[in-house]
């Protein structure tokens, strides 16, 4: 059940230039959180009537809720100033997330802060006891430069193999995350192995991954990032075009099946 919870800030720390990790004590929201879902956050430093801001659930564990975010505008810069001990109002968990089962190898493809829901997904995929053909997920992570590749240590701790790509070549393959992905896809297909694609990041990446899922006939789970107002399906601000018409990212998504999306 989604809740509007007063959550105390436990930790709020830098994790690379422009990125921050916010850890909240939010037992009610954390209890029901599933990977790919998001929370709608009231930024305390903004005026009381300012809209909320949506963030993926980076992790939910032992009553704690973790958010990994990038400061890009008024709301996120204001969020930067929140200190441990202060209270943040979080509404969630919201939206439809990723499935927590996978046939074959889960291929996770992230760009920038789009990595956030993929970490929680990786954890859950590894925990799900009765995965058919259980496989450790692989992560294909892209960013402009080295410091845009987030949470690498956390994935390493899970035993997830990471294939990194940076636009400037400062870490991993030079180029986009699809470069190492395509290599892996070729390998898996040659081996006749099953796989599913899970992705979150900028629209360009989502399109590239969707195309591959559709053309290869593999399940593709695409988490779309649209500016939101209500976060609960009431306002119709957060539209994603689909083959059946306009869908709301906040309740019909943010995760859509690749073949449903119309760009």
């Amino acid at each position, binding site marked *: 059940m*989604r809740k*509007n919870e007063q959550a105390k800030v436990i930790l709020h720390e830098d994790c690379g230039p422009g990125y921050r990790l916010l850890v909240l004590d939010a037992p009610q929201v954390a209890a029901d959180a599933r990977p790919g879902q998001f929370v709608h956050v009231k930024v305390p430093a903004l005026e009381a*009537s300012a*809209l909320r801001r949506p963030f993926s659930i980076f992790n939910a564990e032992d009553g704690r809720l973790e958010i990994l975010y990038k400061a890009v505008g008024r709301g996120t810069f204001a969020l930067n100033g929140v200190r441990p001990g202060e209270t943040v109002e979080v509404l969630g968990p919201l939206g439809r997330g990723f499935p927590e089962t996978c046939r074959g190898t889960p291929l996770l493809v992230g760009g920038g802060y789009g990595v956030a829901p993929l970490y929680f997904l990786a954890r859950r995929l590894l925990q799900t006891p009765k995965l058919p053909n259980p496989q450790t997920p692989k992560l294909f992570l892209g960013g402009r430069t080295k410091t845009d590749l987030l949470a690498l240590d956390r994935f390493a701790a899970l035993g997830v193999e990471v294939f990194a790509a940076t636009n400037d070549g400062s870490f991993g393959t030079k180029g986009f995350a699809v470069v190492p992905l395509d290599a892996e896809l070729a390998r898996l297909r040659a081996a006749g192995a099953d796989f599913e694609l899970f992705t979150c990041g900028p629209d360009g990446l989502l399109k590239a991954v969707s195309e591959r899922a559709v053309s290869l006939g593999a399940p593709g789970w695409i988490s779309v990032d649209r*500016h939101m107002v209500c976060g*609960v399906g009431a306002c119709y601000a957060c*539209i994603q075009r689909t083959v059946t018409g306009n869908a709301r990212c906040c309740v019909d998504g943010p995760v859509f099946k690749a073949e449903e999306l119309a760009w």
Partner: protein
Amino acid sequence: MVKMDVNLGGLRMPTPVATASGTFGYGTEYVGLVDYAKLGAVTAKGIRLDPWPGNPMPRHAEVVGGLVNAIGLQGTGVEAFLSKTLPAYRTVSKVPLIANIWGGSVEEYAAVAARLGDRVEAIEMNVSCPNVKAGGHTFGQDPNVLFEVVAAVRKATARPLLVKLAPNVPSIVPYVKACEDAGADALSLINTIPAMVIDIERRVPVLANRTGGLSGRGVHPVAVKLVYDAHRATKLPILAMGGVYEAKDAIELLLAGATAVAVGTATFTDPGVVAAVHDGIVAYCERHGFASVSDLTGNLQG
């Protein structure tokens, strides 16, 4: 015990606090987050005869003190509303439902109202949408056109009929009179104020639709003025909305002449506003010795 129920032109509301159309989906979206026991009515998102896709994205821009939106009336058509949305609402809520309707022609308005029959407790007409046949001006822009469309809907429905008026008029009085003459039971005031936000770095309007409507905190003093003017011009009861964020805002609207109020944009930020407004009105009535919330309507001194 303050008597909180009000009669809004035949619509019996258990409390004077409603939700505003377009900000509360079809009434099911906020279940568990908003206290429905404090609500006197839910106004559903606008519907027309056929489903409508609305505007391209982006559909909103945040501004200081408010929100500019151009959702573009995306909505299910009246058939899906009756077969799916409405039954779903009835399973979760006993609160009276106001259907918000619109159309591209006078005939469409009347057809939607007729089709709704007595399945909803009241009908609110949104007349701030382009009149396709009359060259794109909105129905609410010209008192004569307004009279015509309201009269047509009046013939099509026996349910309490509310007309929702636009705030961007030199004087609200001719519009109020047109509604009165055409047989409306109540007025809804105010719809959003036409507005625009420009992204100066890209030199484009932020909204795909270029322009939109301003709602939220900042429009409140404008709403109070229009409710005050309308109330002085008519005996029709008024459902007032526009920037209600706390009980004080609602009480201002009641004192200006409203019979009931609706919370809109505020719910997006804080779903608790509905309950806080309700409770704050009760506390105010108790503190000032009003036995009934309807004693507040238009009750300014001097």
